[in-house]
């Protein structure tokens, strides 16, 4: 594949843009000051504070858990929805898929809270996960749908002609072909879930705490570097998890070449 220098340069500039704030976050996690205002000196102490902060650690763990479950469920549902949108041109589904992305989070949060209370669902990690799936499905569906467009139908037909059931044809032919779209959707869903604040705020109830909620409480007064520390760690942990997952199932991330 030919690679032009200018393409490489602009792409690298984009990476710099993406990582500039991150560098600030990571560097300031070592700041020897209770505020994130100015650099005072280097220290490891905030990581120490973090490891003793049970609330923060629980919140981080909850966020990871909810993120994994919510992204898994919404990826499955979203892929189905994307497929249905592409093939069957349904009437109602398109709106139901797009609207949760469009609707202001605060409205969705309040209305879900009212709904959960009405059906007497205990508010907690489960209610949060259900809420997250609702708004993540659309992201996955839209990406999968766009990946499906331009799909070579003849491959699928060939499989069917050879006697494969629709499910088998999907699993062995279509799915590998749209896998980058599915993975992209899953990554987006996960990101949306672990970072969600507004909807989680309303559907969390008295017992469940996720990281964005916990961080919000600190942001309202002073942002100590402990927050930077937990952000840095969360990134690292998630990265390690994903890399480990990709090692275990190399075919997942990669399209069948």
């Amino acid at each position, binding site marked *: 594949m030919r690679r032009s220098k200018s393409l490489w340069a602009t792409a690298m500039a984009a990476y710099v843009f993406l990582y500039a704030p991150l560098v600030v976050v990571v560097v300031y996690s070592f700041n020897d000051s209770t505020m994130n205002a100015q650099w005072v000196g280097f220290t490891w102490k905030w990581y120490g504070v973090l490891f003793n902060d049970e609330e923060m650690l629980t919140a981080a763990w909850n966020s990871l858990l909810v993120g994994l479950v919510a992204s898994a469920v919404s990826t499955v549902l979203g892929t189905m929805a994307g*497929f249905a949108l592409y093939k069957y041109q349904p009437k109602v589904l398109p709106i139901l898929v797009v*609207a949760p992305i*469009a609707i202001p989070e605060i409205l969705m949060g309040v209305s879900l809270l009212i709904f959960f209370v009405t059906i007497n669902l205990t508010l907690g990690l489960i209610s949060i996960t259900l809420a997250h799936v609702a708004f993540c499905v659309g*992201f996955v569906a*839209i*990406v999968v749908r766009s990946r499906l467009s331009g799909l070579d139908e003849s491959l699928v037909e060939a499989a069917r002609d050879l006697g494969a059931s629709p499910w088998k044809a999907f699993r062995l032919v279509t799915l590998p072909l749209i896998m980058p779209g599915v993975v992209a959707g899953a990554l987006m869903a996960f990101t949306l879930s672990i970072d969600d604040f507004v909807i989680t705020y309303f559907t969390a109830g008295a017992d469940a705490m996720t990281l964005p909620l916990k961080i919000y409480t600190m942001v309202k007064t002073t942002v100590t570097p402990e927050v930077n520390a937990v952000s840095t760690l969360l990134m690292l942990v998630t990265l390690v998890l994903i890399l480990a997952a990709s090692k275990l199932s190399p075919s997942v991330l990669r399209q069948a070449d």
Partner: protein
Amino acid sequence: MKVSRTQRWAVGAPPLLYLLIFFAIPTLIMVVASFRQPGEYGGLAPLFLEGENGTWRLDVTLESYRAVFSDTLYTGLFLKSFGYALVTTFACLVIAYPLALLIARSPAKVRDLLVLLVILPFWSNFLIRVYAWMIILGPQSAFILGLNGLLGSVGLEPVELLNTPFAVVVGLVYVHLPFMVLPLYANLEKHDPSLLDAAQDLGANAWQRFWRVIFPLSLPGVYAGAALVFIPAFGIFAIPDILGGTTGIMIGNVIKQQFLETRDWPFGSVLSMILTAIAVLVAGLAAWFARRSRL
């Protein structure tokens, strides 16, 4: 190929049902709320009021709807948010495209890593990242000091980037960038390299190859990314709040206020529905364009 009814149902029903239960019904509660009176102390007033003879009547009103259109205040803010969302979408497209292209063309092993590197920053925390931008764009940052030093040496006035519309756009673009990169990448990844080779053999230069071959093929990905950036950006409130200074208000902020400070849920509901309707319209247009450009 004939599609059986059961197949349609098996695939379409689960997401449909899920969204009906956990999205449509809760939202319906708020749609009805837009016709109700705000509660005296917050929330909503009771739907039914006791009448004189002990009969119950429905206490509904169009007051909230009238309030939205009574002057240009709210429509102006809708337009402002629309404008910002549009600018953000274009900026994201311009920045994301080279990145997605590079990743799509990279060898398989590196590709996954590059994709992960794009999304990794977004597993930190939203607020922290935005606050980091406050530091970078703030008057005491190395970046700003360096920039102003540069401007000063050429005889230009120093700039203040924080608490300006520029800062808001930077924040909006930053936060939405992966949602443009990933759909674009998912689309570009499947492009057949032989098409490009053929174009080059036929004498097309790099720019023509891009504009006549790559870009049109990638349109479905472009529309998907545009939808996933524009729609959330349209209703966002946190970024104008933090980076926007005194003029940073957008319609998302007004909606948030209705549910919190003002405790005027009916009004917030009306604004939300208008916002959603516009966004769904835009998404519909995007899908329509995408279908037209389907190859």
